């Protein structure tokens, strides 16, 4: 590779720290921003994302809430309508169901229902996904459900750059944005430009270019998919990996550009298969690129079971690298 003209300084940090830096940055940039949720202050965040922020910004802006998901999510909506820029943290996606009324019936509807008189510039962050043996009430991937709802935007940062950069862009958005952080990514460590800042939230990214097959994924499954692409490369299969980044809206253009090039696709989605985001993407490919396909589209999703506790069963329930490799080879007729 040619030497970069001006190599920017990089720092080593975790995904958790990248999210924390994003929150800190937003709190510094904009006095309207505050963080609110269960255990975000004194405890430091269930996943330690907000650790240290209470000491820096005080209890008004790092606001511990009672276990009232609907109440404080609705409070975030009201504060956003009144001109603040709240970040609501919901501990896990499973708990967000207790706030679903406010998210779906109010946040997503108010702009349209009021004839554009009121908007809800609110960001809701939550942890999603399995892998820590937290069993069937703390391990699900329901972001696909949220991606069903018109009126909100849904993001899934899978990289340090996105963990650091999506929040500010989401806060500047005039509509509600949900950010899903996969629990298995929080400890992921890597290098990030010291001056990393806001990133766009409306485009998918090609994380690995390839000619033979498109592997389309997002969030925690990205790294399994990239690992699968490396394994496929060893067998002379050149896979392209698409990181959706935004689950609503979906970036159809990037997906179709990839699929029309590779003519084959496998979708990797930690949600359950039935009625999934993977099903939606599959349908869009069929609608928009059917005649460019050389093989049926494959899907690697979670098994249709509440996520179980024991490690071997949890692993068996989730998309894993060997399953992705097998699905890709099947699509290429090399199973």
């Amino acid at each position, binding site marked *: 590779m040619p030497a970069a003209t001006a190599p920017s300084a990089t720092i080593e940090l975790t995904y958790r720290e990248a999210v924390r830096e994003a929150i800190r940055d937003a709190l510094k940039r904009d006095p309207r921003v*505050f963080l609110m949720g269960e255990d975000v202050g004194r405890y430091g965040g269930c996943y330690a994302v907000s650790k240290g922020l209470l000491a820096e910004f005080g209890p*008004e802006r790092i606001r511990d*809430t*009672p276990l*009232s998901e*609907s*109440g*404080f*999510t*609705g*409070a*975030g*909506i*009201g*504060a*956003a*309508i*009144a*001109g*603040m820029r*709240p970040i609501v943290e919901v501990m896990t996606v499973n708990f967000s169901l207790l706030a679903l*009324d*406010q998210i779906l*019936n*109010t946040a997503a509807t*108010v*702009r*349209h*229902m*009021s*004839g*554009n*008189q*009121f*908007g809800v510039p609110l960001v809701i962050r939550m942890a999603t996904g399995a892998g820590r043996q937290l069993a069937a009430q703390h391990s699900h991937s329901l972001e696909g459900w949220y991606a069903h709802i*018109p*009126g909100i*935007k849904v993001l899934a940062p899978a990289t340090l750059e996105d963990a650091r950069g999506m929040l500010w862009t989401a806060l*500047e*958005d*005039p*509509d509600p944005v949900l950010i899903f952080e996969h629990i298995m990514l929080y400890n992921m460590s890597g290098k990030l430009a010291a001056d990393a800042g806001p990133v766009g939230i409306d485009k998918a990214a090609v994380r690995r270019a390839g000619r033979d097959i498109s592997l389309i994924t997002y969030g925690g499954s990205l790294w399994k998919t990239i690992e699968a692409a490396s394994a496929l490369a060893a067998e002379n299969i050149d896979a392209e990996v698409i990181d959706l980044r935004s689950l609503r809206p979906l970036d159809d253009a990037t997906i179709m550009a990839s699929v029309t090039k590779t003519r084959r696709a496998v979708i990797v989605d930690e949600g359950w298969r039935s009625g999934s985001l993977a099903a939606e993407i599959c349908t869009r490919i069929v609608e928009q690129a059917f005649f460019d396909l050389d093989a049926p589209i494959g899907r690697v999703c979670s098994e249709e079971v509440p996520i179980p506790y024991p490690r071997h069963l949890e692993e068996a329930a989730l998309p894993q690298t060997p399953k992705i490799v097998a699905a890709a080879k099947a699509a290429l007729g090399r199973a």
Partner: protein
Amino acid sequence: MNRTDDRPHLTRAHSLELLKQMIRISRFEDKCAELYTQEKIRGFLHLYDGEEAVAVGVIPVLEQRDRVVAAYREHGHALVRGMSMKAALAEMYGKREGCSGGRGGSMHLFDRATNFYGGNAIVGGGLPLAIGLALADRMRGEKRVTACFFGEGAAAEGEFHESMNLAALWSLPVLFVCENNLYAMGTALAISESETDIHAKAACYRLASEAVDGMDVVAVEAAARRAVHAVRETVKPYFLECRTYRFRAHSMFDAQLYRDKAEVEAWRKKGPIVRFQGWLEQNKMIHPEDVARIEAEVAAELAEAVAFAEAGTWEPVEQLTRYTYAETAN
């Protein structure tokens, strides 16, 4: 502000205004019911008949800068808050000239100009919204009051209890106004709540709380003055339970199998309009020509509103998805 200023000043002019606002709501809704049978208005239509004293007693006490969150029986609140009859009726017609561009209908009246935040058809759903509006005001040090109206049915919802706790815990300037009309759709309070004294529930969360005769507009206004004054001065929430009654069906689809006609008739005799008007007449504070003048003014306003709604336009279908998201992304 002196405490005595909290009392309503029942001058002749003020009395006439209270009476007029109640008659205005009542005649407007009579017309809505008629237009519903003509299929000009569709969907759900929840009438406020019998409960007028609550909106009329509370809302004029608020200032322009204050905020109002209402539920789905909110025509009266919108009108008293300052929404024009024209904009309200056009909304119920589904016309573009309606207060919400025709997208919301009867249950979703919104008006930015008067800080009127709907129009929420999820029972209890407006309470957390009011918490957030008030939280923003508290964080910015703005001395606004958010008045949040809901029925007693909301007290069974988790959002009610979450909101009471948050309001008291965070010391938020919210005036909660519970319009206790004794029935959550067709379910009587006594068969749905272990504790039927709603204002006592709020007191459990350490809110200042009182119950008032919601059929007496003067009593409601007096209580509202105390309450709004307290919220503004203390920056703490206040809970006002207005004991009232709904004379008509829950919505236009309700056959009212759950209550006796005699019960309704008994309540009608204590209706807020008949009671206040009768009291004013007895005390020679108004004359028959005053009422005739109010009726004529309201009839004229209503005729204008109907003509406006009739002349309104339909949003082009091409704009169906408009405002699902903001049009100018930052």
